Protein backbone atom coordinates (compact mmCIF):
# COMPACT_ATOMS: atom_id res chain seq x y z
CA UNK A 1 0.00 0.00 0.00
CA UNK A 2 2.57 2.53 -1.07
CA UNK A 3 -0.05 5.06 -2.11
CA UNK A 4 -1.47 5.20 1.39
CA UNK A 5 1.90 5.74 3.01
CA UNK A 6 2.71 8.61 0.73
CA UNK A 7 -0.69 10.24 1.23
CA UNK A 8 -0.28 13.84 2.26
CA UNK A 9 -3.56 15.55 2.93
CA UNK A 10 -4.37 19.22 3.12
CA UNK A 11 -7.48 19.93 5.17
CA UNK A 12 -9.37 23.18 4.65
CA UNK A 13 -11.96 24.33 7.21
CA UNK A 14 -14.26 27.38 7.14
CA UNK A 15 -15.96 26.72 10.48
CA UNK A 16 -19.66 27.00 11.27
CA UNK A 17 -20.54 29.74 8.77
CA UNK A 18 -19.40 30.20 5.19
CA UNK A 19 -16.23 31.52 3.61
CA UNK A 20 -16.65 31.22 -0.15
CA UNK A 21 -13.59 33.35 -0.88
CA UNK A 22 -11.40 30.76 0.86
CA UNK A 23 -13.08 27.79 -0.88
CA UNK A 24 -12.69 29.60 -4.22
CA UNK A 25 -9.03 30.31 -3.47
CA UNK A 26 -8.13 26.69 -2.64
CA UNK A 27 -10.13 25.55 -5.68
CA UNK A 28 -8.05 27.74 -8.01
CA UNK A 29 -5.52 26.01 -10.31
CA UNK A 30 -2.78 28.25 -8.87
CA UNK A 31 -3.24 26.97 -5.31
CA UNK A 32 -3.83 23.36 -6.39
CA UNK A 33 -0.63 23.38 -8.49
CA UNK A 34 1.31 24.94 -5.64
CA UNK A 35 0.10 22.27 -3.19
CA UNK A 36 0.85 19.52 -5.69
CA UNK A 37 4.38 20.79 -6.25
CA UNK A 38 4.93 20.82 -2.48
CA UNK A 39 4.17 17.10 -2.43
CA UNK A 40 0.60 17.13 -1.16
CA UNK A 41 -1.63 14.47 -2.70
CA UNK A 42 -5.09 15.12 -1.26
CA UNK A 43 -7.20 18.20 -0.62
CA UNK A 44 -10.26 17.91 1.61
CA UNK A 45 -12.48 20.97 2.03
CA UNK A 46 -15.03 21.58 4.78
CA UNK A 47 -17.09 24.29 3.07
CA UNK A 48 -19.80 24.99 5.67
CA UNK A 49 -22.85 26.95 4.57
CA UNK A 50 -21.08 28.34 1.51
CA UNK A 51 -22.74 28.49 -1.90
CA UNK A 52 -19.59 27.96 -3.94
CA UNK A 53 -18.98 24.28 -4.62
CA UNK A 54 -15.41 23.32 -5.55
CA UNK A 55 -14.72 20.82 -8.32
CA UNK A 56 -13.98 17.25 -7.28
CA UNK A 57 -10.96 15.41 -8.66
CA UNK A 58 -10.20 11.75 -8.16
CA UNK A 59 -6.46 12.31 -8.48
CA UNK A 60 -6.01 9.10 -10.49
CA UNK A 61 -3.84 10.87 -13.04
CA UNK A 62 -1.36 11.76 -10.30
CA UNK A 63 -2.74 15.24 -9.78
CA UNK A 64 -4.12 16.54 -6.49
CA UNK A 65 -7.25 14.64 -5.40
CA UNK A 66 -9.96 17.07 -4.27
CA UNK A 67 -13.03 16.29 -2.17
CA UNK A 68 -15.37 18.37 -0.04
CA UNK A 69 -18.18 18.19 2.52
CA UNK A 70 -20.33 20.79 4.30
CA UNK A 71 -20.24 19.88 7.99
CA UNK A 72 -19.00 17.02 10.12
CA UNK A 73 -19.71 16.33 13.78
CA UNK A 74 -16.03 15.83 14.41
CA UNK A 75 -13.40 17.83 12.62
CA UNK A 76 -10.77 16.49 15.00
CA UNK A 77 -10.22 13.30 12.96
CA UNK A 78 -9.62 15.30 9.79
CA UNK A 79 -7.20 17.59 11.61
CA UNK A 80 -5.31 14.57 12.95
CA UNK A 81 -4.94 12.88 9.58
CA UNK A 82 -3.94 16.05 7.73
CA UNK A 83 -0.35 17.13 7.03
CA UNK A 84 -1.29 20.77 6.48
CA UNK A 85 -4.32 22.71 7.65
CA UNK A 86 -5.72 25.80 5.99
CA UNK A 87 -8.27 27.37 8.31
CA UNK A 88 -10.51 30.37 8.81
CA UNK A 89 -9.39 32.70 11.61
CA UNK A 90 -11.73 31.43 14.35
CA UNK A 91 -9.90 30.86 17.62
CA UNK A 92 -11.48 27.42 18.09
CA UNK A 93 -9.93 25.77 15.06
CA UNK A 94 -6.68 27.75 15.41
CA UNK A 95 -5.99 26.39 18.90
CA UNK A 96 -7.28 22.91 18.12
CA UNK A 97 -4.76 22.73 15.25
CA UNK A 98 -1.88 24.27 17.22
CA UNK A 99 -2.45 21.79 20.06
CA UNK A 100 -2.01 18.96 17.56
CA UNK A 101 1.27 20.54 16.47
CA UNK A 102 0.20 20.61 12.81
CA UNK A 103 1.38 23.22 10.30
CA UNK A 104 -1.34 25.82 9.84
CA UNK A 105 -2.16 28.59 7.41
CA UNK A 106 -4.87 30.92 8.70
CA UNK A 107 -6.82 32.76 6.02
CA UNK A 108 -8.45 35.95 7.27
CA UNK A 109 -11.96 36.71 6.04
CA UNK A 110 -11.82 40.34 5.00
CA UNK A 111 -15.58 40.47 4.35
CA UNK A 112 -16.45 40.18 8.03
CA UNK A 113 -17.74 43.44 9.49
CA UNK A 114 -16.05 43.17 12.84
CA UNK A 115 -12.74 41.84 11.69
CA UNK A 116 -11.00 41.42 15.00
CA UNK A 117 -10.04 37.86 14.13
CA UNK A 118 -7.02 38.99 12.12
CA UNK A 119 -5.50 40.31 15.39
CA UNK A 120 -5.02 36.81 16.77
CA UNK A 121 -3.81 35.30 13.48
CA UNK A 122 -1.29 38.13 12.97
CA UNK A 123 0.01 37.92 16.54
CA UNK A 124 0.49 34.15 16.28
CA UNK A 125 2.11 34.57 12.84
CA UNK A 126 4.53 37.15 14.32
CA UNK A 127 5.44 34.54 16.92
CA UNK A 128 5.97 32.00 14.09
CA UNK A 129 3.32 29.57 15.32
CA UNK A 130 1.45 29.71 12.00
CA UNK A 131 1.28 31.41 8.61
CA UNK A 132 -1.25 34.14 7.98
CA UNK A 133 -2.78 34.84 4.56
CA UNK A 134 -5.80 36.30 2.85
CA UNK A 135 -7.60 34.63 -0.06
CA UNK A 136 -5.57 36.62 -2.62
CA UNK A 137 -2.14 35.87 -1.11
CA UNK A 138 -2.76 32.20 -0.25
CA UNK A 139 -0.88 30.78 -3.25
CA UNK A 140 2.17 32.99 -2.50
CA UNK A 141 2.16 31.99 1.16
CA UNK A 142 2.07 28.31 0.17
CA UNK A 143 4.87 28.71 -2.33
CA UNK A 144 7.09 30.65 0.12
CA UNK A 145 6.31 28.75 3.30
CA UNK A 146 9.04 26.90 5.13
CA UNK A 147 7.48 24.48 7.60
CA UNK A 148 10.76 24.16 9.50
CA UNK A 149 10.55 27.83 10.48
CA UNK A 150 7.42 27.21 12.55
CA UNK A 151 7.77 27.30 16.35
CA UNK A 152 5.63 24.86 18.41
CA UNK A 153 2.87 26.61 20.36
CA UNK A 154 3.20 26.31 24.14
CA UNK A 155 -0.27 25.38 25.40
CA UNK A 156 -2.09 27.87 27.65
CA UNK A 157 -3.11 27.22 31.24
CA UNK A 158 -6.37 28.25 32.93
CA UNK A 159 -5.10 27.48 36.46
CA UNK A 160 -3.70 31.03 37.04
CA UNK A 161 -7.15 32.51 36.27
CA UNK A 162 -8.79 30.03 38.67
CA UNK A 163 -6.18 31.00 41.30
CA UNK A 164 -6.98 34.67 40.79
CA UNK A 165 -10.68 33.98 41.39
CA UNK A 166 -9.84 31.79 44.43
CA UNK A 167 -7.61 34.47 45.94
CA UNK A 168 -10.39 37.03 45.55
CA UNK A 169 -12.70 35.00 47.78
CA UNK A 170 -9.92 33.98 50.13
CA UNK A 171 -10.16 30.33 49.09
CA UNK A 172 -6.96 28.33 49.47
CA UNK A 173 -5.30 27.14 46.25
CA UNK A 174 -6.10 23.53 45.52
Amino acid sequence: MESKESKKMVFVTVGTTSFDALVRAVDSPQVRDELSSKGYTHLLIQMGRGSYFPSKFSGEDGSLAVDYFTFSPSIADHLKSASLIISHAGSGSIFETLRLGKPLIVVVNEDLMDNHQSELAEELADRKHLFCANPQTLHQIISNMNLDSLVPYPPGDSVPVAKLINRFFGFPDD
Partner: protein
Amino acid sequence: MSSLRRAFKSLDPDLVFNYMEEYLEAGFFKLTPFFIAITISLLAIRLTYVFLRSSKPFVDPPERVSTMIVLGSGGHTAEMLSIVNVLNKERFSPRFYVAATTDNMSLQKAQVLEQSLAHEGKGSSEAAQFLQIYRSREVGQSYITSIGTSLIAMMHALWLTLKIRPQVIICNGPGTCIPLCVAAFMFKVAGLRWSSIFYIESIARVRKLSLSGLLLYKLRLTDQFVVQWPQLQRKYPRSQYVGRIM
Protein backbone atom coordinates in the same frame (compact mmCIF):
# COMPACT_ATOMS: atom_id res chain seq x y z
CA MET B 1 -34.50 72.93 62.82
CA SER B 2 -34.13 73.92 66.46
CA SER B 3 -37.84 73.19 66.98
CA LEU B 4 -37.24 69.64 65.74
CA ARG B 5 -34.31 69.17 68.11
CA ARG B 6 -36.33 70.53 71.02
CA ALA B 7 -39.29 68.33 70.13
CA PHE B 8 -37.25 65.13 70.03
CA LYS B 9 -35.13 66.09 73.03
CA SER B 10 -38.14 66.54 75.22
CA LEU B 11 -39.79 63.49 73.64
CA ASP B 12 -43.03 65.34 74.22
CA PRO B 13 -45.56 63.77 71.86
CA ASP B 14 -47.43 67.03 71.46
CA LEU B 15 -44.35 68.94 70.42
CA VAL B 16 -43.36 66.21 67.92
CA PHE B 17 -46.89 66.21 66.56
CA ASN B 18 -46.91 69.99 66.22
CA TYR B 19 -43.64 69.95 64.39
CA MET B 20 -44.80 67.27 61.99
CA GLU B 21 -48.01 69.16 61.32
CA GLU B 22 -46.01 72.28 60.51
CA TYR B 23 -43.82 70.27 58.27
CA LEU B 24 -46.69 68.72 56.34
CA GLU B 25 -48.42 72.09 55.98
CA ALA B 26 -45.37 73.28 54.08
CA GLY B 27 -46.93 71.38 51.22
CA PHE B 28 -45.95 68.49 49.03
CA PHE B 29 -44.54 70.69 46.28
CA LYS B 30 -42.13 72.44 48.56
CA LEU B 31 -40.87 69.11 49.86
CA THR B 32 -40.44 67.33 46.53
CA PRO B 33 -37.04 68.88 45.69
CA PHE B 34 -35.92 68.05 49.20
CA PHE B 35 -36.84 64.37 48.78
CA ILE B 36 -35.28 64.22 45.32
CA ALA B 37 -32.08 65.70 46.70
CA ILE B 38 -32.04 63.14 49.52
CA THR B 39 -32.69 60.25 47.14
CA ILE B 40 -29.93 61.37 44.75
CA SER B 41 -27.42 61.83 47.57
CA LEU B 42 -28.26 58.44 49.08
CA LEU B 43 -27.90 56.81 45.66
CA ALA B 44 -24.59 58.61 45.10
CA ILE B 45 -23.31 57.46 48.49
CA ARG B 46 -24.45 53.89 47.79
CA LEU B 47 -22.88 53.91 44.29
CA THR B 48 -19.58 55.21 45.67
CA TYR B 49 -19.62 52.47 48.28
CA VAL B 50 -20.41 49.76 45.68
CA PHE B 51 -17.66 51.01 43.34
CA LEU B 52 -15.15 51.17 46.20
CA ARG B 53 -16.02 47.78 47.66
CA SER B 54 -16.16 46.02 44.30
CA SER B 55 -12.75 44.67 43.23
CA LYS B 56 -11.75 44.38 46.91
CA PRO B 57 -11.01 40.78 47.87
CA PHE B 58 -13.12 39.12 50.55
CA VAL B 59 -11.82 39.28 54.12
CA ASP B 60 -13.91 36.35 55.38
CA PRO B 61 -13.90 33.54 52.83
CA PRO B 62 -17.44 32.24 52.23
CA GLU B 63 -17.91 28.50 52.48
CA ARG B 64 -19.30 28.23 48.97
CA VAL B 65 -20.51 30.65 46.33
CA SER B 66 -23.38 30.25 43.88
CA THR B 67 -21.86 30.78 40.46
CA MET B 68 -23.32 32.03 37.20
CA ILE B 69 -21.25 31.01 34.19
CA VAL B 70 -22.10 32.92 31.02
CA LEU B 71 -21.29 30.98 27.87
CA GLY B 72 -20.67 33.08 24.75
CA SER B 73 -20.47 30.71 21.80
CA GLY B 74 -17.75 28.81 19.89
CA GLY B 75 -14.33 29.97 21.05
CA HIS B 76 -15.76 31.91 24.00
CA THR B 77 -17.45 28.78 25.35
CA ALA B 78 -14.28 26.71 24.91
CA GLU B 79 -12.27 29.24 26.93
CA MET B 80 -14.92 29.51 29.64
CA LEU B 81 -15.26 25.75 30.09
CA SER B 82 -11.49 25.37 30.39
CA ILE B 83 -11.66 27.79 33.36
CA VAL B 84 -14.67 26.02 34.92
CA ASN B 85 -12.81 22.74 34.53
CA VAL B 86 -10.11 23.83 36.99
CA LEU B 87 -12.37 25.59 39.53
CA ASN B 88 -13.06 23.82 42.80
CA LYS B 89 -16.51 22.33 42.24
CA GLU B 90 -17.44 22.22 45.90
CA ARG B 91 -16.68 25.87 46.58
CA PHE B 92 -18.18 27.13 43.32
CA SER B 93 -21.56 25.55 43.80
CA PRO B 94 -24.29 25.50 42.65
CA ARG B 95 -23.36 26.41 39.08
CA PHE B 96 -25.78 28.07 36.68
CA TYR B 97 -24.77 27.96 33.04
CA VAL B 98 -26.39 30.62 30.86
CA ALA B 99 -26.26 30.74 27.05
CA ALA B 100 -28.19 32.58 24.33
CA THR B 101 -31.40 30.97 23.08
CA THR B 102 -29.88 30.90 19.59
CA ASP B 103 -26.80 28.98 20.75
CA ASN B 104 -27.65 25.31 21.22
CA MET B 105 -24.08 24.01 21.25
CA SER B 106 -22.73 25.77 24.36
CA LEU B 107 -25.13 24.30 26.92
CA GLN B 108 -24.59 20.84 25.44
CA LYS B 109 -20.84 21.22 25.93
CA ALA B 110 -21.40 22.41 29.51
CA GLN B 111 -23.64 19.39 30.13
CA VAL B 112 -20.93 17.08 28.83
CA LEU B 113 -18.42 18.71 31.19
CA GLU B 114 -20.78 18.43 34.19
CA GLN B 115 -21.55 14.79 33.38
CA SER B 116 -17.86 13.94 33.26
CA LEU B 117 -17.41 15.74 36.61
CA ALA B 118 -20.28 13.77 38.14
CA HIS B 119 -18.66 10.65 36.76
CA GLU B 120 -15.37 11.48 38.48
CA GLY B 121 -17.29 12.17 41.67
CA LYS B 122 -16.32 15.88 41.64
CA GLY B 123 -19.79 17.26 41.17
CA SER B 124 -23.39 16.21 41.40
CA SER B 125 -26.21 16.61 38.93
CA GLU B 126 -28.07 18.94 41.34
CA ALA B 127 -25.08 21.27 41.49
CA ALA B 128 -25.52 22.39 37.89
CA GLN B 129 -28.39 24.08 36.06
CA PHE B 130 -28.60 25.12 32.43
CA LEU B 131 -30.51 28.22 31.36
CA GLN B 132 -31.11 30.18 28.20
CA ILE B 133 -31.35 33.94 27.75
CA TYR B 134 -32.69 36.13 24.93
CA ARG B 135 -30.00 37.86 22.96
CA SER B 136 -29.88 41.66 22.68
CA ARG B 137 -28.92 41.63 19.06
CA GLU B 138 -28.42 38.94 16.47
CA VAL B 139 -25.68 39.20 13.85
CA GLY B 140 -26.97 41.45 11.07
CA GLN B 141 -30.05 42.66 12.97
CA SER B 142 -30.97 46.31 12.31
CA TYR B 143 -30.24 48.82 15.07
CA ILE B 144 -33.86 50.03 15.26
CA THR B 145 -35.35 46.60 16.02
CA SER B 146 -32.44 45.87 18.34
CA ILE B 147 -33.71 48.57 20.74
CA GLY B 148 -36.82 46.44 21.33
CA THR B 149 -34.93 43.15 21.58
CA SER B 150 -32.38 44.73 23.94
CA LEU B 151 -35.21 45.75 26.26
CA ILE B 152 -36.58 42.21 26.23
CA ALA B 153 -33.07 40.86 26.88
CA MET B 154 -32.64 43.29 29.78
CA MET B 155 -35.95 42.26 31.36
CA HIS B 156 -35.04 38.61 30.93
CA ALA B 157 -31.62 39.23 32.47
CA LEU B 158 -33.19 40.99 35.48
CA TRP B 159 -35.57 38.07 35.97
CA LEU B 160 -32.82 35.44 35.68
CA THR B 161 -30.46 37.30 38.00
CA LEU B 162 -33.24 37.82 40.54
CA LYS B 163 -34.10 34.12 40.37
CA ILE B 164 -30.52 32.86 40.63
CA ARG B 165 -29.07 35.63 42.82
CA PRO B 166 -25.51 34.54 42.00
CA GLN B 167 -22.61 35.43 44.28
CA VAL B 168 -20.19 35.09 41.38
CA ILE B 169 -20.61 35.84 37.69
CA ILE B 170 -17.89 34.62 35.35
CA CYS B 171 -18.13 35.81 31.76
CA ASN B 172 -15.98 36.43 28.70
CA GLY B 173 -18.28 38.02 26.12
CA PRO B 174 -19.76 38.48 23.61
CA GLY B 175 -22.90 40.62 24.17
CA THR B 176 -24.96 38.04 26.09
CA CYS B 177 -23.15 38.89 29.34
CA ILE B 178 -23.83 42.66 29.29
CA PRO B 179 -27.50 42.65 30.42
CA LEU B 180 -26.64 40.03 33.06
CA CYS B 181 -23.76 42.10 34.45
CA VAL B 182 -25.90 45.28 34.41
CA ALA B 183 -28.73 43.44 36.21
CA ALA B 184 -26.34 42.04 38.81
CA PHE B 185 -24.86 45.51 39.35
CA MET B 186 -28.34 46.99 39.85
CA PHE B 187 -29.11 44.38 42.51
CA LYS B 188 -25.75 45.13 44.08
CA VAL B 189 -26.64 48.84 44.35
CA ALA B 190 -30.14 48.00 45.59
CA GLY B 191 -28.60 45.80 48.26
CA LEU B 192 -30.53 42.73 47.13
CA ARG B 193 -27.48 40.62 46.35
CA TRP B 194 -23.75 41.21 46.28
CA SER B 195 -22.34 39.56 43.14
CA SER B 196 -18.65 39.57 42.29
CA ILE B 197 -18.21 39.88 38.55
CA PHE B 198 -15.21 38.39 36.74
CA TYR B 199 -14.60 39.14 33.08
CA ILE B 200 -11.93 37.24 31.16
CA GLU B 201 -11.33 38.85 27.76
CA SER B 202 -11.07 36.35 24.91
CA ILE B 203 -7.62 35.32 23.68
CA ALA B 204 -8.70 36.57 20.26
CA ARG B 205 -8.38 40.13 21.57
CA VAL B 206 -4.71 40.99 21.24
CA ARG B 207 -4.55 44.74 20.68
CA LYS B 208 -8.06 46.03 21.48
CA LEU B 209 -10.80 45.04 23.90
CA SER B 210 -14.06 43.66 22.53
CA LEU B 211 -17.09 45.94 22.69
CA SER B 212 -18.46 43.97 25.68
CA GLY B 213 -15.08 44.11 27.41
CA LEU B 214 -14.70 47.83 26.77
CA LEU B 215 -18.19 48.57 28.12
CA LEU B 216 -17.66 46.56 31.31
CA TYR B 217 -14.18 48.07 31.79
CA LYS B 218 -15.24 51.67 31.25
CA LEU B 219 -18.42 51.36 33.36
CA ARG B 220 -16.34 49.62 36.08
CA LEU B 221 -18.95 46.91 36.42
CA THR B 222 -16.44 44.11 36.98
CA ASP B 223 -14.63 43.19 40.18
CA GLN B 224 -11.72 41.64 38.30
CA PHE B 225 -10.95 42.17 34.63
CA VAL B 226 -8.53 39.71 33.04
CA VAL B 227 -6.84 39.95 29.63
CA GLN B 228 -4.69 37.32 27.93
CA TRP B 229 -2.00 39.42 26.26
CA PRO B 230 0.55 41.63 28.07
CA GLN B 231 0.28 44.43 25.47
CA LEU B 232 -3.46 44.66 26.17
CA GLN B 233 -2.84 44.85 29.93
CA ARG B 234 -0.45 47.78 29.41
CA LYS B 235 -3.19 49.57 27.48
CA TYR B 236 -5.83 48.95 30.16
CA PRO B 237 -4.02 49.33 33.51
CA ARG B 238 -6.95 48.24 35.69
CA SER B 239 -6.91 44.84 33.95
CA GLN B 240 -4.82 41.86 34.99
CA TYR B 241 -2.64 39.52 32.96
CA VAL B 242 -1.93 36.03 34.27
CA GLY B 243 -0.97 34.31 31.03
CA ARG B 244 -2.98 32.65 28.28
CA ILE B 245 -5.71 30.12 29.02
CA MET B 246 -5.73 28.59 25.50
